[in-house]
């Protein structure tokens, strides 16, 4: 009698709802992942029936590859630039839109537009913007008298990564903006009234009322942004393929080149697992830090 009630309280019937999702996820994400882990201990070209077991050799090779360190550094640079450009823009626009009396719907849709473009198309468009002779950036610089700053952006060792990151931020901010907008909707309006009564101006309102109220949203969005930055691939591949000479190499492009362009599946799997562990670690750390300082 007691057991039956305990079992019912476990609500195991809920698993019936979960099973579809779990099935798809296990078969098409978890299973390949475990196979990837296994493959990372082999040397394989992807279609040869024979695989060669090499133990940890792939991992050791990865750790001693100087390009890996460079790629990691680039990902970190990417994270930092994205926070300013992508997150900053997204939050700013979300706040402004939410304060709009009229035209909210218009701005919401229009500002979301770049996110509707596929990375391939966005890479193509920005490739033209950065064209050394007829691109918008250089033409603009020349027209305001700063022509000496003009250069081939996507071929520049110093600027290639930044240029691609800017292009990606343009494409991506819309997504985060929508998420911030959602968070902003749940801010208690009476807090704003109270702040106005206290005589707070726009900036103070933002810093002392808005930001703390949307803290959970910010944590969520920043975590997503962190994950996406560490995984970034499409725009880099479309614009520079990691060039020139690895200056815009990121983890994902390095992995792609190794596993697929060089037909080294085992090594590629090892690298991508290291990337997955990195993403996981950093993200969990970030969330923990945020939760702890929430007080």
């Amino acid at each position, binding site marked *: 009698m007691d057991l039956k009630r305990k079992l019912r309280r476990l609500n195991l019937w809920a698993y019936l709802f979960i099973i579809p999702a779990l099935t798809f*996820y296990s078969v098409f994400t978890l*299973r*390949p992942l475990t196979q990837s882990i296994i493959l990372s201990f082999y040397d394989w070209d992807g279609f040869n029936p024979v695989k060669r077991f090499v133990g940890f050799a792939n991992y050791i090779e990865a750790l001693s590859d100087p390009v890996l360190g460079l790629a990691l550094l680039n990902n970190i640079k990417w994270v930092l630039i994205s926070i300013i450009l992508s997150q900053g823009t997204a939050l700013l626009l979300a706040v402004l839109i939410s304060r709009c009396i009229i035209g909210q719907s218009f701005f919401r849709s229009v500002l979301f537009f770049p996110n509707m473009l596929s990375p391939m198309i966005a890479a193509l468009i920005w490739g033209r913007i950065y064209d050394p002779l007829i691109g918008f950036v250089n033409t603009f610089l020349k027209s305001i008298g700063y022509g000496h700053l003009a250069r081939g952006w996507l071929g520049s060792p110093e600027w290639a990564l930044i240029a691609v990151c800017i292009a990606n931020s343009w494409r991506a901010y819309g997504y985060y903006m929508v998420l911030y907008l959602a968070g902003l909707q749940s801010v208690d309006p009476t807090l704003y009234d109270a702040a106005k009564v206290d005589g707070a101006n726009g900036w103070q309102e933002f810093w002392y009322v808005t930001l703390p109220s949307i803290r959970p949203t910010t944590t969520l969005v920043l975590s997503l942004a962190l994950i996406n930055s560490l995984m970034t691939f499409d725009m880099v591949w479309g614009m520079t393929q990691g060039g020139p000479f690895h200056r815009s190499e990121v983890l994902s492009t390095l992995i*792609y080149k190794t596993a697929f362009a060089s037909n080294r599946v085992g090594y590629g799997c090892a690298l991508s697992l290291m990337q997955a562990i990195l993403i996981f670690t950093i993200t969990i750390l970030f969330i923990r830090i945020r939760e702890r300082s929430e007080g």
Partner: protein
Amino acid sequence: MRLIFIILLIYTLIALIPFSWVVLNSFKNNTEIFSNPFGFPKQFLFNNYTEAWVTGKLMQYMINSFIIAIPTTLGTLMVSSLAGYAFGRINFWGDTLVFSIFLFGLMIPFEAIMIPLYFILKGLGLLESYAGVIIPGIGGPFGIFLMRNFFRQIPLELSDSARIDGCGEFKIFLYIMLPLAKPALGALAIFSFMGSWNSFLFPYIVITNDAKRPLQVGLLNFQQRFYTDYRLLFAAIVLSMIPVIFFYVLFHRQFIQGIASGALKE
């Protein structure tokens, strides 16, 4: 207030100008695209569009993209709402653990599973088929996360009173919760459709048969190995955006409502 408008307008320009440039250039011929990239076309070559449509086989590729994107979206909506409901409203044994396993999936980069996934599809006989692209695209953690958050905010009294009335769990889900979830479903529909429509790498490796390839892959045909026909490429790009925009407009209100009701609140 005016300052806000000005800033928003500036960003609007930044958001729209690059694509408008593509639209502008899609009416020029190849020589003009490079000699006069920012000006108005001397002649509006509307035949760029008809030519892109025909030689680029855009109808074929678009239909393929629809055949892939629509089932993917529907499947994602169904699977995510079911799972999201359970995670969001039912306390069951192991719910935190299983949910964390799903969250973990957000952090797995595609390259980590690409090759084994290919072989799994091969084993299931799903290569060179639409299903091979659709099925792995369903059940993404993001959708579950979204629906769970939304369902969590619906007051408990609603389901409790239904239960007291003797309503079965699945009926509660189907007739009470799901209709309430339209905003979140709208948001998920847009994200899911866009994701599927814009995806390139996965369909590219699963389907090598040109007749079944979706649009993003088909656009490659304009960029052959040693020759890119830019005017056709630009026209094709503009055409490829029409379904996305249309889909967005269709679900726009639910999307906005979904945001407004805090579907993505923590």
